[in-house]
């Protein structure tokens, strides 16, 4: 209960001001495509030089929390995920927005974000020593199986066709091989200097999601000036709370999966949302509604990607190993004040450590309050004419891609992938499986090669990848996941008439 003792630190005027600044700024940065949580935190570090250690961390912690949630805004309203963590939110969130339920989707996403986020931080507060051991138990073989589990999600992610989902996943896996391979030292498919560093996920994400939208918007704008205006129905906050509570299965699945995956170093929030979305779809009694603007999809995805924030800091705070890119940036923020995270962090610097964690707790709630306010403004975004919106989104897309590594190469990559995606979408392929392939490819590959290198030097590949309960648990989940998809496919087939197949 030590954390309550330092709670009043958070409400000191200066600290609370920074918390507000970090939260509001984080929401805005998060909503901007291309500004991922890692980028937002890295941009803020120079500003913490002049602050006290705990003040600097309050700012960074608040920004981390709210950029993750802020990414949902553009994911829902524009179908452009602010960061990889928000990909799953686009699936049902944007479908809801198209039905005029944009405000409702935003409210649901912020409420479930806050619930998931608070749970994650509470885990960080109470279970850190236990969780630290859990975070360490994931070796290369387990990460490999976990990535394979992610791959099994690819097929079911696209609601229209499993085959097309798998095909676009394969395109993503191929794109992931481009660039220098750090383990074998090989150069693969480097046909232009823009891709010499590989395809960066953020520009790819922006291109694949935003550019087809932009082209579609321009096309509509030309057809008629008074093209369809998306209506945004008002939605009471209290009803949104009731909806979230009603959907407690999705909320629970999202929160738990987010917390568990958040702990695993190197995988983190990028796939937490997608895995949670997939699992809640499989467990839901209304699984056929997923992808058509179903509230459970938004709730599970957003609860998961915020629940992962707290646990993702466990390896950093206890073992001094950053488990995610954002945690690595936070480590820099701690070191610059001469604070070495480790098991005695809470003994040597209790004020810094607890104030930081408390501020993340309060930050989740503030984020929810401001987020609900933003949700009320959603209507004004929908009222912007399509052609104007297209220009603004295109501008943001270029800005977002350039800012990741300060290079035009990423802008070319974004444009090229976006244009290709426009045509792929016309043939019924979708972007989410492709991005998932791009994210999972390197994780699966690197861990397989690392694992087999260790295995060859020690016990042999077969033994290394197929012993231990954790390996088997993951393998069983993979088999179950594939089996379930096949079964669903076969069962649906039975009820499909010949005319439907031919049409």
């Amino acid at each position, binding site marked *: 209960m030590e954390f309550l003792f330092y709670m009043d630190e958070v409400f000191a005027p200066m600290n609370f001001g920074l918390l507000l600044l970090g939260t509001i*700024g984080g*929401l*805005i*940065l998060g*909503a*901007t495509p291309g*500004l991922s949580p*890692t980028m937002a*935190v*890295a*941009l*803020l*570090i120079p500003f913490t030089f002049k602050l006290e250690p705990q003040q600097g961390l309050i700012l960074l912690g608040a920004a981390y929390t709210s950029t993750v949630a802020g990414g949902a805004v553009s994911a829902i309203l524009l179908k452009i995920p602010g960061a990889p963590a928000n990909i799953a939110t686009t699936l049902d969130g944007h479908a809801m927005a198209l039905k005029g339920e944009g405000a409702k989707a935003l409210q649901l996403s912020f409420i479930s974000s806050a619930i998931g986020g608070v749970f994650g931080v509470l885990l960080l507060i109470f279970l850190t020593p236990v969780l630290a051991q859990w975070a*360490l*138990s994931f*070796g*290369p073989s387990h990460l490999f199986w976990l990535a394979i589990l992610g791959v099994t999600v690819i097929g079911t992610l696209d609601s229209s066709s499993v085959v097309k989902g798998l095909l676009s996943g394969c395109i993503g896996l191929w794109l992931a091989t481009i*660039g*220098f391979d*750090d*383990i*074998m*030292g090989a150069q693969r498919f480097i046909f232009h*200097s823009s891709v*010499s*560093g590989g395809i*960066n996920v953020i520009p790819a994400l922006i291109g694949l999601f935003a550019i087809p939208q932009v082209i579609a918007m321009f096309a509509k704008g030309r057809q008629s000036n008074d093209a369809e205006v998306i209506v945004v129905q008002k939605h009471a906050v209290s009803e949104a709370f009731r909806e979230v509570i009603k959907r407690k299965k999705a909320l629970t699945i999202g929160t738990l999966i987010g917390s568990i995956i958040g702990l695993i*170093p190197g995988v983190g929030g990028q796939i937490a949302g997608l895995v949670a979305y997939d699992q809640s779809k499989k467990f839901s009694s209304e699984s056929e509604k997923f992808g058509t603007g179903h509230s459970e999809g938004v709730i599970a995805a957003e609860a998961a990607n915020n629940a992962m924030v707290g646990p993702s800091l466990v390896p950093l705070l206890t*073992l*001094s*190993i*950053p488990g995610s890119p954002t945690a690595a*940036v*936070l480590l*820099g923020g701690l*070191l*610059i004040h*001469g604070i*070495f*995270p*480790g*098991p005695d962090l809470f003994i040597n610097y209790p004020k810094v450590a607890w104030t930081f964690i408390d501020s993340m707790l309060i930050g989740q709630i503030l984020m929810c309050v401001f987020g609900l306010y*933003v949700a009320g*403004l959603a209507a*004004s975004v929908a009222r912007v004419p399509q052609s104007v*919106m297209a220009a*603004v989104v295109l*501008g*943001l897309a270029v*800005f977002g891609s350039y*800012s990741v590594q*300060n*290079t035009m190469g990423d802008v070319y990559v974004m444009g090229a992938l976006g244009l290709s995606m426009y045509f792929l979408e016309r043939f019924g392929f979708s972007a989410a499986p492709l991005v998932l392939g791009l994210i999972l490819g*390197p994780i699966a590959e*690197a861990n397989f090669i690392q694992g087999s*290198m*260790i295995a*060859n*030097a*020690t016990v042999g590949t077969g033994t290394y990848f197929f012993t231990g309960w954790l390996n088997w648990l993951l393998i069983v989940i993979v088999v179950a996941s594939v089996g379930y998809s096949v079964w669903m496919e076969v069962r649906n087939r039975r009820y499909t008439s010949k005319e439907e197949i031919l049409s």
Partner: protein
Amino acid sequence: MKKFIAGAAIALVAMTTSAAAEGHGDFPERPVMLMVSYGAGGATDFQARIVTMTAGNDDALGMPVAIINKPGAGGRVGWNWLATQADADGYTLGAYNVPHFIAQSIKGGVEYSTDSFEPIANWGADPAVFVVGADSDFNSMADVIAYATANPGGLTFSGAGLFVGHHIAALQLEKAAGVKLAYIPNKSGGSGAMRAVIAGEVLGGVNNLSDAFRAREAGTVKILGVFDTARNSFMEDVPTMAEQGYDIDNASVNFRGVMVPKGTPQSVIDHLAATVPAMFENSRVASRMKAGGSPMNIMNRDEVLEMWAARQITLEALLSGL
């Protein structure tokens, strides 16, 4: 929509940490850019931000230095850019990591070599160390090598990747001890390599002295030896490899410093070479670096030129067999 525009504006302001420049006749007349070929928050980026924080002072450059990150492919993306696309006018500096960029240029596939750049000054030197888990049976390098001799190719140890300091150290150890070892490069860099050691996935690891120092403070690892010519002030109790009977010099030490692309006017190079080492010596810089556990080693342009030339020869010999 206002939110998005505001977001864009805030981000733009945040990224241009430049101040208005007027009234200076001499170089530099405007803020200077320092390209870091690793991501924001990494050790090189973190140290570059600290050592340049006093650049705006009148006794230093008199102009602020803005850090621009161009990460990718283990630094190759940034250094390729600096060698081929950057303006050689003195306003574009680059941070170097030796032996990384020299080893990469020897291995090939990149558009730079030591001849593509002109060094300005060196700020830091982070030696590689050999670490094992806190509960490991190994207590000295002799134990490690004894195990490796008994199990040829069976001693697994992690490091940050290929053609980086850790890899060089691994090659040196293999050569000096005359045994075959299983070096496992880690995709997640130094922190991933350290995690593999702590979690017991590998029997040992090569890692940065600064990170190993923190891990030892945290009680998770033992440090068995330093790949350097002398003991380090952060850990006087840890012997060097040479002291333990292995003929290993400081070729794997990760030197970090500032360079400019070839073709930068000589007057500008001279001006930078005179002012930048003094800037690194600022007491505020030193205290921040010490607090962050980052060992400093300030060298002037001539010393760096000599170090680069020496590294080129050592690394060519070491990498020729690969």
